[in-house]
């Protein structure tokens, strides 16, 4: 299969720079799959699982949240707030974060509620992706 140039950028730096066959990410409208030769495209990214097929056919999973995906003729860029490869996820920590967020959800209102909700979502995705390796 033909490949395209993919870059994954977070505030912590460039996490991936190389050829990929396929990337599936969750945008705010739902999952999208980008293959080589896609039209120029841009969409904000939500919290969810990202699945990347590398040029050797290997599939890598990651927990990804926030930012955008932008497809250009020569390059596809996933700009995420957080992006963690499944093997780097600390499931134990994510579980703790999930519990903490659930406690916060019980007694916080409005804005903080929303924040706690986002935290919970991120934790759930991390747990899901992290455990999918086992």
């Amino acid at each position, binding site marked *: 299969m033909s490949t395209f140039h993919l870059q994954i*950028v*977070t*505030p*912590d*730096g*460039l996490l991936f720079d190389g050829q990929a066959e396929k990337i599936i990410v969750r*945008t*705010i*409208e739902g999952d*999208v799959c980008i293959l080589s030769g896609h*039209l*120029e*495209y*841009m*969409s*904000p990214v939500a919290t969810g699982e990202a699945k990347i097929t590398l040029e050797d056919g290997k599939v890598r999973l990651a927990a990804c949240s*926030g*930012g*955008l995906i*932008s497809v250009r003729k020569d390059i596809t*860029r996933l*700009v995420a*707030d*957080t992006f963690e490869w499944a093997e780097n996820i600390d499931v134990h920590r994510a579980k703790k974060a999930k519990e903490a967020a659930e406690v916060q959800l019980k007694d916080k209102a409005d*804005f903080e509620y*929303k*924040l706690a909700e986002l935290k919970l979502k991120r934790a759930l995705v991390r747990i899901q992706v992290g455990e999918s390796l086992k």
Partner: protein
Amino acid sequence: MSASSMKSIKNRIKSISSTMQITKAMELVATSKMRKASERIQKSKPYFNILRETLEDIARDNKDFSSVYTRDRKGKTCHIVIAGDRGLAGGYNSNLFKFIKVNKEDIILPIGKKVSEYFEGADIYTNAYSRAEHIKISDCHAMGNALAKSYEKGEFTRLVISYTSYVNALTQEPKTVSMLPVKIAANEGNSENHRLIIYEPDAETAFANIIPHYLSGMIYGAVSESVASELSARRNAMEAATDNASEMINKLSLEYNRARQASITRELTEIVAGAENLKQRN
């Protein structure tokens, strides 16, 4: 000179050299933290640049584009001010405070303990981020989201950020940058710039969705630069202090040696004079 003045000089030398040890240690700590901090700046830059590019693309490629985030409105200004938690960094904090222009009715979002102290009594947006050293990327996201919401609601209609930009290890400049509304240079009429890009769900929604990330990226970058600036300002200040201390020690040791010599000479004169006296009596 007497033995007592020699003793006081000796005491001063002792106290200065223990101060010097502290300044030297602070210098070394700042130097080692510096490397990490400047790496962080380099790493966070692409994130912000791509977001900025994308925003510009959206605004430029869509002729009928209109968003609350690009319009000028009348109202208050929110001012994010980033400085340090501690002093002993030369003019790092005071340079920034001298530089920024804040109106009375402006809302302040302080980052750094010194900023909270400086703006006590002003209209504070939130004091939750008053420790600059512990600001993480997740804090910046929380800030970006909250600020974008407040801006949309009209709690303030302009957002600016003041921080100390890190030029290099020797130069740091206080800076004020406008964040909202986003100013985008007009299309120069070049039709090649006009591309067809699919936006999902649509350009406006995409734009509004990216704004919080753009803000948080900008805040994170500014915090990273400020931290690096603070560390290098502290390193320079401590380096100067260490140099001053060693110069003072040199001067004092010279003075001490002179005093010691003078007292030996005096003692010798006394002995010789005493011996002469004895001789004469015999």
